[in-house]
C-alpha cells in the first residue's frame, strides 16, 4: 500500500517533470504565458509528488513496514526513531530519493522566488532543473527502486551498516547533499545564459547567493564527514584520501575556484567563459562523484553497492559534459574578455593563480582517483593510489594556495605597485616568519610543517591587519567606536570581511592538519590487568573489561584509568561492537578532546576473562583546530551571505 503510493507518486512526478521542462521551453519560445505558468505550476506539483514519495518511505521506515525491501535492509524495529528516519539515506535507493526530493524542493524554491522575474532565464532554468529531477526519479523507477516489495515479509529488518549507526548520520549526509544539490541552481542559470546568449554578469548576480550557500553546505558537510570519520572509524584520522572523500572534495575545489573567480567578472567583466566553465565543472564533478559512489567501479568504505545505477549516472555525465562543452565552444566567440589591468600585480591575476592552483589540485585528485582504472586499461595491472601519493602531490599545492589566500586580499583590483604590496605584506610577513622561526626554535624540524605554520600565521595576520585597518579608517572618518566600526565594516562589505573570516578559518584548519599529521603519538601494546602504557604525558592503565548487549549488537568495553602527569585524570572505556553479520567488530573509540591535543583510545583485542587487552593509544595534537576552523569557515560564509541593506545605485548600475 505504502509502496504503491510511493511508486505512483514517483511515476506521476516523472511525467510532470518532463512536462514542466518541455512546457517551459515551448511556452517561452511561442510566447504563451499560460503554458509557462502551467510549467511553473508543474514544478510545484513535482515537488509535492516527490515529497509524497519521500514521506511514504519515511512512514514505512518509522512503522517498520518490512514488506518493503529497502526497510528490511536498512532498518530495525529496535532502532530509536531517529535512526529509523536516517535509514532513508542509509543506502542507495533511499539516498537517491532524498537527493531527488532536495532537487525538487530547490526547483520549487526557484520558481516561487523568481515567478515573475528573470523572464529570459527562468524557462531554461526550469527546463534544466526539471531535466535533472526527471533523471533522478527515472533512476529510482528503473534500476534503484526504493519501493521494491519484499516477500515473504520478515519479522525483523537487517539494520543499517553498523558504521552508520551514529548520530552523525543525521547530519553529515544532509549537509553534503544540500551542497551538491545547491550547485545545480547556478549551473542551471549558467546553462540558461549560454542557451539564450545573455552572457553579461546577470546570471552571476542572481546565483551568487545560491553558489555561496551550496559551497557553505559542502564545506560543512566535508568537515563534518572528517569529524565522523575521526570519532567513528577508529583509526585516529579524519581524512584518508579515499575515492569517495575525493569525490566530495573535487566539486568543493572547483566550487571554491568559482566563487572566487566570479568576483573578477562582477567587478571587471572579465573571465566570462572561465566562470561558465567552472560552474559547469563543479556540477559535472558532483555528478561524477555520485557516479563514483554508486557505480561500484571503485572500492571505498563509503561506497554504496553497485548496480545498473552506474550506467545511468555515466549517461547523465556524458550528456552534461557533451552539451555544456558544446555550448561553451559555440559561445566562445561572444565571450572574449574585454578587460585590462594596469599592472601584472593585480587582484585579477591573483584570482587567476588561485584558480590555477585550485584546478590543479582538483585535477590531481581526479587523476589519482581514476588512475587505477587507466593503469588497468593500459597495462592490465591493478595499482592503488592512496594517501602517500596525495600527500606528496597535494601538499605543495595546498601550501601555495594558502600563501595566495594571504596575498590575494591585499592586492588591489586593476593592479598595484610592488611598493604598495610590500607595505601591505610587511607586517603579516614578519609575523608569519616569526611564527615559523619560533616553531623551529621549539625544535620542530619538518620543513613542510614549519612552512605551513609560517604561511597560516601569515594568512591570519593579513586578516587581522585588514580588520584593524578597516576599523581604524572608519574610526577616523566616521568617528565610530571600535565595535560599531567593526559592525559597519561588515555591513558595508560583507563579502570581503566575511571572506576574511573564512580565510582565518582555513588558516586554523591548515595548522590543525599540519600538526595532527606530523606530531601524532601512537602506542600500541598488550596490557595485562593493572599494567599501564605511556603516550605523551598520559599513562593509561588497563583495569578490566565489561560486556553489554545493545539493540543490534554485543558491546565489550575495556576499562582504563588515565593519568595525566601522574594525576588521575579519569576513566576511558573504548569498546568493540560485535554484530552478528559482520566479519570484524566495529571499534567504538573513546576520546578526550582538548584545545592542544586529543587523547584517543582504541580497544584492539582482549581476553574474555579480562586478563589482558591490546590497546592503541594516540595523542593527536590540535585536531580540534580543524573543527574550529571549519566552524569559523561556515560562520564567515554566513556573514558574507547576510543580506546587505543598501548599495549605491550608481555602483550597481555601473556594474551590470
Amino acid at each position, binding site marked *: 500500500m505504502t509502496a504503491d503510493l510511493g511508486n505512483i507518486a514517483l511515476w506521476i512526478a516523472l511525467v510532470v517533470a518532463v512536462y514542466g521542462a518541455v512546457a517551459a521551453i515551448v511556452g517561452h519560445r511561442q510566447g504563451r504565458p499560460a503554458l509557462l505558468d502551467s510549467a511553473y505550476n508543474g514544478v510545484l506539483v513535482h515537488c509535492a509528488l516527490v515529497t509524497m514519495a519521500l514521506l511514504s518511505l519515511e512512514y514505512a521506515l518509522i512503522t517498520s513496514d518490512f514488506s518493503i525491501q529497502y526497510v528490511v535492509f536498512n532498518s530495525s524495529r529496535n532502532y530509536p526513531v531517529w535512526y529509523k528516519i536516517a535509514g532513508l539515506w542509509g543506502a542507495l535507493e533511499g539516498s537517491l530519493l532524498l537527493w531527488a526530493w532536495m532537487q525538487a524542493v530547490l526547483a520549487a524554491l526557484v520558481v516561487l522566488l523568481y515567478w515573475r522575474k528573470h523572464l529570459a532565464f527562468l524557462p531554461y532554468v526550469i527546463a534544466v532543473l526539471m531535466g535533472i529531477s526527471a533523471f533522478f526519479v527515472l533512476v529510482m523507477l528503473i534500476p534503484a527502486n526504493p519501493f521494491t516489495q519484499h516477500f515473504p515479509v520478515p519479522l525483523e529488518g537487517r539494520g543499517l551498516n553498523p558504521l552508520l549507526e551514529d548520530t552523525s548520520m543525521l547530519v553529515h549526509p544532509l549537509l553534503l547533499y544540500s551542497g551538491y544539490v545547491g550547485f545545480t541552481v547556478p549551473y542551471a542559470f549558467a546553462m540558461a545564459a549560454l542557451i539564450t546568449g545573455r552572457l553579461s554578469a546577470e546570471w552571476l548576480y542572481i546565483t551568487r547567493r545560491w553558489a555561496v550557500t551550496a559551497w557553505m553546505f559542502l564545506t560543512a558537510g566535508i568537515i563534518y564527514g572528517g569529524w565522523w570519520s575521526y570519532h567513528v572509524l577508529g583509526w585516529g584520522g579524519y581524512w584518508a584520501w579515499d575515492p569517495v572523500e575525493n569525490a566530495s572534495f573535487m566539486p568543493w575545489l572547483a566550487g571554491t575556484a568559482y566563487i572566487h573567480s566570479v568576483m573578477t567578472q562582477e*567587478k571587471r567583466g572579465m573571465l566570462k567563459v572561465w566562470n561558465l566553465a567552472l560552474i559547469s565543472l563543479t556540477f559535472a564533478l558532483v555528478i561524477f562523484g555520485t557516479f563514483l559512489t554508486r557505480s561500484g567501479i571503485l572500492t571505498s*568504505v563509503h561506497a554504496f553497492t553497485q548496480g545498473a545505477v552506474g550506467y545511468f549516472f555515466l549517461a547523465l555525465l556524458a550528456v552534461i559534459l557533451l552539451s555544456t562543452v558544446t555550448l561553451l565552444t559555440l559561445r566562445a566567440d561572444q565571450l572574449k574578455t574585454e578587460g585590462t589591468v594596469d599592472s601584472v600585480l*593585480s587582484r585579477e591575476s591573483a584570482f587567476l593563480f588561485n584558480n*590555477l592552483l585550485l584546478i590543479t589540485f582538483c585535477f*590531481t585528485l581526479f587523476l589519482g582517483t581514476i588512475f587505477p582504472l587507466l593503469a588497468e586499461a593500459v597495462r592490465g*595491472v591493478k595499482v*592503488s593510489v592512496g594517501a602517500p*601519493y596525495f600527500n606528496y602531490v597535494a601538499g605543495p599545492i595546498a601550501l601555495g594556495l594558502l600563501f595566495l589566500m594571504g596575498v590575494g586580499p591585499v592586492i588591489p583590483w586593476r593592479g598595484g605597485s610592488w611598493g604598495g604590496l610590500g607595505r601591505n605584506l610587511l607586517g603579516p610577513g614578519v609575523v608569519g616568519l616569526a611564527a615559523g622561526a619560533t616553531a623551529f626554535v621549539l625544535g620542530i624540524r619538518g620543513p613542510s610543517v614549519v612552512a605551513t605554520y609560517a604561511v597560516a600565521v601569515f594568512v591570519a595576520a593579513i586578516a587581522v591587519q585588514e580588520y584593524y585597518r578597516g576599523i581604524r579608517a572608519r574610526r577616523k572618518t566616521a568617528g565610530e567606536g571600535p565595535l560599531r566600526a567593526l559592525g559597519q565594516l561588515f555591513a558595508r562589505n560583507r563579502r570581503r570581511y566575511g571572506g576574511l573570516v573564512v580565510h582565518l578559518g582555513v588558516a586554523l584548519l591548515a595548522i590543525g592538519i599540519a600538526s595532527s599529521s606530523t606530531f601524532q603519538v601512537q602506542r600500541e601494546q598488550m596490557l595485562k590487568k593493572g599494567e599501564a602504557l605511556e603516550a605523551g604525558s598520559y599513562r593509561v592503565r588497563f583495569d578490566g573489561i565489561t560486556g553489554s548487549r545493545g539493540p543490534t549488537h554485543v558491546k565489550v568495553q575495556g576499562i582504563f584509568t588515565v593519568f595525566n602527569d601522574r594525576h588521575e585524570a579519569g576513566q576511558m572505556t573504548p569498546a568493540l561492537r560485535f554484530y552478528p553479520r559482520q566479519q570484524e567488530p566495529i571499534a567504538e573509540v573513546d576520546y578526550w578532546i582538548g584545545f592542544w591535543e586529543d587523547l584517543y583510545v582504541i580497544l584492539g583485542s582482549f581476553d574474555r576473562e579480562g586478563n589482558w587487552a591490546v590497546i592503541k593509544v594516540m595523542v593527536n595534537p590540535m585536531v580540534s583546530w580543524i573543527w574550529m576552523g571549519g566552524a569559523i569557515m561556515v560562520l564567515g560564509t554566513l556573514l558574507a551571505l547576510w543580506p546587505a541593506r543598501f548599495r*549605491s545605485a550608481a555602483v550597481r548600475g555601473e556594474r551590470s
Partner: protein
Amino acid sequence: MNGKLRRRPVERSERTRVRGSRGTPLVVFVLAIVVALPLSASSVEQQVQQITSELRCPVCQGLSVADSPSQMANQMRDLIRERLSAGESPEAVKAYFVERYGEWILLAPKREGFNLLVWVLPFLGLGAGAMALVIVVRRWKRQPTADASLTIDPAHLDRVRRELAEDQR
C-alpha cells in the same frame, strides 16, 4: 631478537638486566643491548610506521596498514616488525609484499614506466597553466586602456571608482 619482546622494550631491558648480573660477558652484552635497544627499537618502530603507511591494508578499503585497526593489519605490522628486526631492509620488506600481493598493495604507485604519468602530470599541468596565465595577464596589460567603461562620462566614472574603493576597503 623476537618481535614480541621488541614491542615492549621496557620489559625486556628489565629482564635482561637481572639476568646479566650473573657474569661479565653477559653484562657487556646486556649493556650493549640496553644502550642499543631504545635506539634500534625506535628506529625499527619508525621504519615499521613508514612502511605500513605505504602499504594498503588488504582487507580494508583504502586504509593503510598503519591506520587500519583490523586484525589482518595487526598481523602485517607484526610480520614487518619481525622482518626488519631480522635485518631485512625496508625495501626488501616492501618488495616481499609486492611479490605476494602485486603492485596493488602499494598505496603510492612506483615511480617508473607508465606510473610516472600520475606523478608528473599534475606538475606539468601546473607549469603549463602558469605559463598560460602569465601570457594572459601580460596581454591584459598590453592592451590599450580601451575598457568599455571608459567611454562614459569621466566625472561619473570617478564617482563610481571612489564608491567602489570605499566599498571594497
